């Protein structure tokens, strides 16, 4: 504290030599050598004081500042290197991605060709199957219709036959049928 108060007083005296000089002028008015010497001594004293007390601070300040700037430069350099590496990596990635894109596009193209062919084959198979099924269904329908017609004709013929028989069937016919039946019974008995 004392050092600081002394430093401020000396600095003030050195900074304002005109005040001391004015005081001296009031008592005596001497030649300019004295002034010169006074000013030189004063200046040297000022330099000494500055060198003695402010020098280390200024030197330290600039040393610290220099170290800070060097650190900052080093950090910026490493950041720059890192950024450069990242940029290189990114470029490599982009190149690889581009290669991958080309590969995927090529694979997709091959897959599309394969799938198109497969779908085409499947469609052909399905069409053939549908054609076959249709033929079978048509044949079955044709056969069913034929059968229905035959059944209808047979039923009509049966009905007609029944009508004719009931109209014209006589005792002689019954006798003939019985003869046949009795013969059949006889054959059965002989077996």
């Amino acid at each position, binding site marked *: 504290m004392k050092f600081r108060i002394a430093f401020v007083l000396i600095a003030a005296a050195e900074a304002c030599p005109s005040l001391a000089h004015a005081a001296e002028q009031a008592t005596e008015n001497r030649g300019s050598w004295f002034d010169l010497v006074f000013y030189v001594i004063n200046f040297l004293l000022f330099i000494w004081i500055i060198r003695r007390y402010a020098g280390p601070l200024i030197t330290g300040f600039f040393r610290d500042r220099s170290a800070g700037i060097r650190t900052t430069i080093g950090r910026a350099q490493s950041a720059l290197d890192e950024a450069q590496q990242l940029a290189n990596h990114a470029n490599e990635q982009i190149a690889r991605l581009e290669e991958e894109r080309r590969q995927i596009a090529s694979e997709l193209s091959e897959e599309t060709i394969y799938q198109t062919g497969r779908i085409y084959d499947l469609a052909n198979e399905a069409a053939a199957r549908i054609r076959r099924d249709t033929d079978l269904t048509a044949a079955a329908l044709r056969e069913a219709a034929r*059968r229905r017609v*035959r*059944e209808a*004709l*047979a*039923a009509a*013929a*049966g009905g007609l*036959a*029944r009508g004719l*028989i*009931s109209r014209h*069937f006589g005792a002689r*016919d*019954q*006798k003939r*049928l*019985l003869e*046949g*039946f*009795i013969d*059949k*019974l*006889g054959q*059965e*008995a002989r077996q």
Partner: protein
Amino acid sequence: MKTSKVAKRYARALLGLSPDRGQLEAWAIELDRLARIVEAPEIINMFASPQISPASKIEGLGKIAEKLDLSYPVRSFSAVVARHGRIEDFAAIADAYRRMLDDLMGRTRATVIFAEEPSDEDRARVHAGLEAIAQKKVIPTVKTDGTLLGGVVVELEGKTYDGSLATRLAQLQQRLAG
């Protein structure tokens, strides 16, 4: 199956009551008459009803037997059947008795269905033919059925001999239909 076994057991018991075949034949006719009455829907429903006591059922069957003027053994037999709660099996018992009696007598039964009323000669010829097949006496039950159109159908010992025109027509119709 259970009813059939039970019916056979009762039928065998009745058959064993007399060595006289003539009497056994008479009992068969009486049993058939009683079975036909018991089989009538209104009577069988009454005997099957749980609302009527067993004693009333026995009494009722006794009265029917009395009205039909059945012989004492058949009346006693029906009373035993009723006491054992087997009135509903009466028809099966009568049927089993008839079959067993037929076996005992060395005869069988046949159903002969003609398309129209047959002459005695036709009956006799068909009868003879059936006896030739069965190799034993055949008791035919003759019926007529106009739907046969012509000919005759016979059922003998579980086998059907079909000489009807209706069947021939049906076969022809089937052949035509393919």
